[in-house]
């Protein structure tokens, strides 16, 4: 086994972010509870933020931090609206099953 490097290579961070993103996608695909699906989206956003930060470390400038900051703000807004929508859906259909909410069909 090779000696552990002093600091983790940058690529590890990016791969980690990729894995997290993929897991978020998985959550979106396999979970049927709207709230969980929504949380998977948040997970994806987090993964993207991680890659932003990692890249801004590589480029040595903090624009990436600004971007992820904006992502956070937008995520907050999105959470507010999304949860409000979920509340309304629940009020009208008494269910959080995402498959039940399929009246778009045809």
């Amino acid at each position: 086994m090779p000696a552990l490097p002093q600091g983790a290579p940058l690529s590890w961070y990016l791969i980690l972010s990729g894995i997290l993103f993929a897991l978020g996608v998985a959550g979106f695909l396999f979970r049927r509870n709207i709230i969980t699906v929504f949380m998977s989206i948040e997970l994806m956003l987090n993964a993207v933020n991680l890659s932003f930060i990692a890249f801004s470390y590589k480029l040595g400038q903090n624009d990436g931090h600004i971007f992820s900051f904006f992502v956070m703000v937008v995520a907050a807004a999105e959470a507010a609206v999304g949860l409000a929508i979920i509340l309304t859906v629940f009020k009208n259909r008494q269910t959080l099953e995402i498959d039940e909410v399929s009246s778009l069909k045809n």
Partner: protein
Amino acid sequence: MQLWLIPIFPFLGFLLNGLFGRRLSKPVVSMIACGSVLLSFLWVLKTIAGLGAPEAAYFEHYFTWIQSGALNISADFAVDRLTEVMLMVVTGVGFLIHVYAVGYMAHEGGYYRFFAYLNLFMFFMLILVLGANFLLLFVGWEGVGLCSYLLIGFYFLEKFATDAGNKAFIVNRIGDYGFSLAVFLIAVHFGTLDFGKVFSQVKGMPVESAPGWITAICLLLLVGATGKSAQIPLYVWLPDAMAGPTPVSALIHAATMVTAGVYMITRSSQMFLHTPFALNIVAIIGVATAFFAATIGLLQNDIKKVFAYSTVSQLGYMFLGLGTGAFSAGIFHLMTHAFFKALLFLGAGSVIHALSGEQDLRNMGGLAKKIPITCGTLFCAGVAIAGVPPFSGFHSKDAILGAAYQYAPWMYWVGVITAGMTAFYVFRALFLCFFGEYRGHHHPHESPFIMWGPLVVLAALSLGGGYINVPRFLEPMFPLAAEGGNEWTMYVSVAFGLGGIALAYLFYVVAPSIPESLASGLHGLYTLVYNKYFVDELYDETVVKPMVDGSRTLLWRGADVTIIDGAVNGVGRTARAVGGILKLAQGGYIRDYAAWVVAGSIAVIVAMALLGGMGGAK
């Protein structure tokens, strides 16, 4: 130094009056409007006191506005000597006119709307003056255009007002189009829009081998300037602009906005100095406009029209000054003109106010005794504009004419004749208005103090303003031309001025019969000039009608109906057809859609990887 405070005060005034004005009482509205302008005037004073007479431009950076590739435009303000002069004129005269307007508009509807627009105008004008790059200048430029449109059409119930507004707006569009092209060219060739950077680059170039595109830029800038400053061929909107309330005519269409073109050309003097050709064009346009407009002004019967054409002609003088390389003289005349022309308009407004709306000179006369203060102040303005020494107009006009003589004697002579005509028509108007018998049927009454107060201040300024030696003040930026020691040019121009006054006195006070006989004698010429050389009709025939017809037949029936509508409908049909097929893929299950998205994104990633998106970070 907090330069941003200067424009922000009027803007706050605009917001307050514009949003809540309807609920506020008139005193509060006028308090807000005048107070905001006064505040920015005081802040200007503080700024200038702090800066003194800066050798280099004092610069303030606020934030990056546009950043695309190499082009980086930021919101910066800068103050140098030129800006200081402009700031003083704009805020100072602007404040006086605001105060005057409180009295003038007292009985008008839409009181708060008027003052909101006026404050907005001040805001944009200050942006225009303070902006440290061409884009900010352009923002102010368009903003003042907008306000001018709004204020010309202030009485939007009358058709002529709205028409005049549209005319001003459309004619200005032509000029602004040229200006924007110039800005694009500058951005392309210099890679920046900051005055400092651009002009330092230009300075680097040798004058004789300056590339052609500099000339192009200058000519396009000139197009913009002719539009905004009402020069040939785009002057036609200004006389109609008199449809707006008189304070507007004074503030926007005499003192400040119309001089924006002069300011802009002066600002980019570095560039113009590199193209003698463009400079020559400026001079020619200037002198031509001055003469041409003056001739029209001779025969107008609407007091405001007279002063409007006089404004055009005086702006022509300024352009003549710029064109002959005497930029400081041009700015000097800009300032003095701001004083006496604002005074003329406000005085005219006071007369109209006194006659409750009468504007026709033929229905005036003998008002000297009825409204003495207005009369006195107006005559101060008259002697100032006629170039009678030692009043303000004399100094600035003399500076310009002196430069003109060194540049090209014929321009000087035309200018001198124009000066004579100027004196003539101004005093014609004054004599018709104040001397002889009262021909109207209203009951004239002197205006309230709040109106004649500003008049008196302006009168003092237009009498003594000539001793503010602007050219000396601006010398570090625009070195004075060598003092060509020929005093006779001065004497000649003065002689012409006095001659014009005397002639007017002879025609309209001593022997009023002469004008009629002359008119009947030179009937053709008279009608030609009286109808402003039929320029409007000419433009209608050559430009407007073809455009309207063309767009109606070709664009509407031809292009719009067949091509565009056809395309739209076709797209719609196709979309429905395709959608019919795609509908089958719509299960209505969000997770399915998500899966599709994932598949697509994977495909995209792979494609990018194969197309060599890899290893980019090496």
